[in-house]
């Protein structure tokens, strides 16, 4: 029954799920409590420009994705600092610009472009050893920064304006948070792809926020949920021969709906007890 463990690509996929769920649960929690799902979508799609550039110039497309998503993080932080009134429009613009740029770059690549679909929709089974190591490094960066600056990051996600009155360097911390989101997106691209990354970043935390009293425990539960979604999705896709990324997202979406129903029932029964 566990014969899939004999395949190297399955072991890689399971390792990648574990690594991705760490980044996903921690950073996803900030995204949910700060309500910046749209901004996250913008950063993710802009990364496609970097993937195209990687194909065109012949370096690992994930490196290109790091560059472009960090650029997007910088652009968003700069706009926020200037109190730009058109922030949502400009994020939409950046979103489309990055995607279009990626498509143009790829159209300049002569011949067949391999793996392109795996960046858009993910294919956890094609993850290489190098990419696993890249994920390890990015995870270490994320965990270290969040551990050191936990209180500061919580303060700016809770109430930016007040944080500024206490003398915290809010603009720098905001840019740091955006950069962490950018890095997390890159960690997740190979698993579920640019288009579906938003679901994996938001759904585990959107569930755990309903059942947790503190940000730390919320992060911990989000990591476990993300891991569960990925492993269940991976197994389903293996046995039913379905695309892995989309199967993982299906598992996550239906789990969210289930959690919403449970949460509703939980509150009703509480009120009933009064």
């Amino acid at each position: 029954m566990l014969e899939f463990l004999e395949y190297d690509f399955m072991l890689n996929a399971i390792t990648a799920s574990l690594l991705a769920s760490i980044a996903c649960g921690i950073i996803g929690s900030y995204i949910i409590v700060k309500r910046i799902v749209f901004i996250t979508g913008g950063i993710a799609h802009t990364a496609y420009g970097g993937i195209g550039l990687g194909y065109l110039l012949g370096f690992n497309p994930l490196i290109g994705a790091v560059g472009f998503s960090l650029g997007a993080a910088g652009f968003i932080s700069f706009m926020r600092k200037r109190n730009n009134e058109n922030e949502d429009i400009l994020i939409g613009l950046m979103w489309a610009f990055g995607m279009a740029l990626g498509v143009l770059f790829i159209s300049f690549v002569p011949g067949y472009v391999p793996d392109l679909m795996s960046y858009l929709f993910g294919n956890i089974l094609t993850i290489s050893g190098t990419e696993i190591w890249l994920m390890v490094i990015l995870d270490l960066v994320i965990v270290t920064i969040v551990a050191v600056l936990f209180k500061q990051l919580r303060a700016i996600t809770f109430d930016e304006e007040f944080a500024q009155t206490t003398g915290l360097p809010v603009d720098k911390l905001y840019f740091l948070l955006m950069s962490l989101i950018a890095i997390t997106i890159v960690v997740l691209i190979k698993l579920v792809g640019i288009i579906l990354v938003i679901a994996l970043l938001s759904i585990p935390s959107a569930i755990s926020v309903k059942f947790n009293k503190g940000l730390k425990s919320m992060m911990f539960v989000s990591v476990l949920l993300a891991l569960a979604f990925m492993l269940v999705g991976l197994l389903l896709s293996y046995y039913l021969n379905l695309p892995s990324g989309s199967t993982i997202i299906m598992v996550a979406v239906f789990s969210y709906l289930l959690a919403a129903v449970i949460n509703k029932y939980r509150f009703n029964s509480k009120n009933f007890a009064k």
Partner: protein
Amino acid sequence: MINAIQLSDVNLSIGNTSILEKINLTVQQNDFIGIIGPNGGGKTSLLKIILGLLPPTSGRVLVFGKSASHNSSSVGYVPQQSEFTKDFPISVWDVVMMGRVGEKKIFSRTSKDDKQIVDEAIEMVSMSEFKSKTIGHLSGGQKQRVLIARALAMKPKILLLDEPTASVDTKTGQNVYELLNKLNETTTIILVSHDMSAISRYVRKIACLNKTLVYHDSKEITKEMLEDTYQCPVDLIAHGLPHRVLDEHGD
């Protein structure tokens, strides 16, 4: 003694809209000033300028003789509505602790002093029994008290409050004012409100703000002052009396 706050010829416009014009205001240490005025009159903007959150278009803002943004930790701010997400998983104690976070060096741990300051701030607003509750589960009035405690945890020399009693019932509102009265012994307080009856019983000085500021360094409000500010006939309230005394209506 150095002035707590000094604004000279402060103007603020956003786009082509003028929000504040020629604001001159001197606040001495341990003053208790109430600023009243209509909605959209620039009250919140004025507080944000003093806090250094909003740079004025022109004019000078000094807090204890230095430019506003250098004094951030000596000014405590209680916003009217906090923007925080309703289901943010955080306890009352951790919210109040945020008043201390600006003081921290990156690697330093929470000190015993910090913990004691936070406990005292929560005690002062009578929220001790709720300190491990999640902030989203509190009532409007309880949340307001937590926000006051968060500002107190900064150990501020100046406290700025934006409509602190807007979302609370009369009894809680009265408690808030009595607390402020006590804090005023050591803290300079500026309070923004449209609730004139409550404000006039506790504050020492009143200013009226509607784009321009009318301030006589006293508690007197004249009918003319108010009518200038609100640009409509206003019923005057007597000071020091527990009930409102209204002018006779002309009809």
